[in-house]
């Protein structure tokens, strides 16, 4: 009895010992992570308390960058625009992505080919597709307005007017990232149990009813995960907006990331930009945590 206990303890100790030794494998990666991820985080905090210019270098300014930030209306508008853009480019991909996952979960001929075409937008180089979209948005010569007018619809101003630019960019974002939502939800659908469906069919539930009352509740955790990932990516969106509008017309599509880029690398206000980065990061973390809390509460009920 005591011998086996001793052996078990020995084994456990050996396991723990191994666990500690496995850290060696992570050392090179840890060095890289410290150098290119953790060091920049700490340095950003340091920079946000300084002012920097190419001729004089760094000078300590305390919290004044943050004070400037609070009274910067351009930053305030950028935050609101980012939220507007994000709501559109989280909501639309979620709805379309769930619908697409339900379709791609069925068996049909050429399903593999169709799914590959469907995920191409998220794999393609963002700069390349942004260029093609910007040519399609041309108000006179663009193919999109041609299609609209041939369908008898009025032409749109797309990215050329302040009131249509954000929804248009959200449309491109939706086109690009609906596939990711689809893949996550498709992974969820594959893991669903089959019994509730059979029970529902025996009880005479329609296809929509079993979707609404069985599939959707079971998929909810996956949908929340997709929503969180999509929110983070929408808040951070840069390439497509920068290539198509550079924040224009005027500042009508200047989101936080575009604002940040301009402050940092057009005006070289690196101290101020660092403060913006930290506020931006805090906003992303808070929004993600709130959404994950919602998921927790969903579980409790």
């Amino acid at each position: 009895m005591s011998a086996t206990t001793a052996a078990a303890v020995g084994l456990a100790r050996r396991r723990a010992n191994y666990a500690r030794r496995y850290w060696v494998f992570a050392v090179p990666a840890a060095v890289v992570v410290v150098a290119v991820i953790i060091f920049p985080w700490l340095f950003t905090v340091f920079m946000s308390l300084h002012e920097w210019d190419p001729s004089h270098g760094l000078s300590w300014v305390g919290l004044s960058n943050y004070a400037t930030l609070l009274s910067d209306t351009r930053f305030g508008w950028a935050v609101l625009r980012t939220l507007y853009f994000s709501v559109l480019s989280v909501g639309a991909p979620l709805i379309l992505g769930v619908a697409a996952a339900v379709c791609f979960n069925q068996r049909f001929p050429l399903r593999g080919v169709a799914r590959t075409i469907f995920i191409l937008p998220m794999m393609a180089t963002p700069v390349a597709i942004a260029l093609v979209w910007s040519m399609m948005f041309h108000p006179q010569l663009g193919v999109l307005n041609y299609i609209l007018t041939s369908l008898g619809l009025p032409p749109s101003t797309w990215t050329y007017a302040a009131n249509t630019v954000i929804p248009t960019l959200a449309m491109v974002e939706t086109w690009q990232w609906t596939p990711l939502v689809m893949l996550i939800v498709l992974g969820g659908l594959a893991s669903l149990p089959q019994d509730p469906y059979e029970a529902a069919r025996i009880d005479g539930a329609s296809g929509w009813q079993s979707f609404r009352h069985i599939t959707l509740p079971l998929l909810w955790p996956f949908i929340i995960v997709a929503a969180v990932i999509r929110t983070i990516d929408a808040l951070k969106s840069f390439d497509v907006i920068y290539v198509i509008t550079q924040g224009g017309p005027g500042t009508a599509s200047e989101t936080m990331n575009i604002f940040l880029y301009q402050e940092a690398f057009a005006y070289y206000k690196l101290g101020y930009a660092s403060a913006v980065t930290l506020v931006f990061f805090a906003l992303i973390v808070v929004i993600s945590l709130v959404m994950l809390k919602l998921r927790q509460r969903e579980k409790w009920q």
Partner: protein
Amino acid sequence: MSAAVTRGRGTRPGRLRRLAGRVGLYASVLVLISPAAFVFLWMLSLALKNEVDNMAFPPVFIPHGPTFANFVKVFAENDFLSYTINSVVVSFSATAAALVIGVPAGYGIAKAKAMRAAALILIARITPGLSFIIPLFLMFQWFGMLGTLTPLVITHLVITVPLVVWIMIGFFEGLPGELEEAALVDGATIWQAFRHVALPLARPGITVATILAFIFSWNNFLFGIVLAGRTTRTLPVAVYNVLTFEQISWGPLAAAALVVTAPVLLLTLLMQKEIVAGLTAGGVKGG
């Protein structure tokens, strides 16, 4: 005959409903994939048309006698060959380095069940790319490294290392540990157990990690536009510059866009199963 009719009549509503469902499904799939197909076909069409056709309204959809003049123009006027080499060097180096350090790290974290280390990787995923680039930009400037490809390779590690580590953690966690334990009991060191037992089993995971790391590094625009000088541009940056200089000339622009994204599209078409597996695992675990 009468028996066949009765049987047919008996199942007709069910069969009709099933037919309607099928038609609905095909129609939905068509609606879902046509925006993707349209944009890429339109890119191809613009790249293969001459300037007159590209500026025509109503637009010309099928090129009248496709021309490769746009591609020739892009390579002749913009030094695209050296930008292609830059992109290849940066993406291959960043992917190779990430595999060398990320695969063992994924193994170590999975075996040590160090979930806090995994959480760190997640935070890296949340952080906006620009917040890495401001400090790194200053560092590279102080060390006089701007104007070489090294800063690009280093910053691309921000993309490739977390991705490889994350995918490999998931993959090694899914492997049964008995084989390695047997090797350890037989007196192998943990390095030998990793090198000769776990690593060969992990080949599918490594394939997925390699493809995704390469694609995301290749596609990166932000780090390039901040760090690249005239001679160190990667392809996405070079294409963006074609845009700023040739606003009106759509043919070369579309040709340039196609050159940049063609390798990625081909890779996706050829390796779609691996890519879907990697993205689904990474995406689901990403929360």
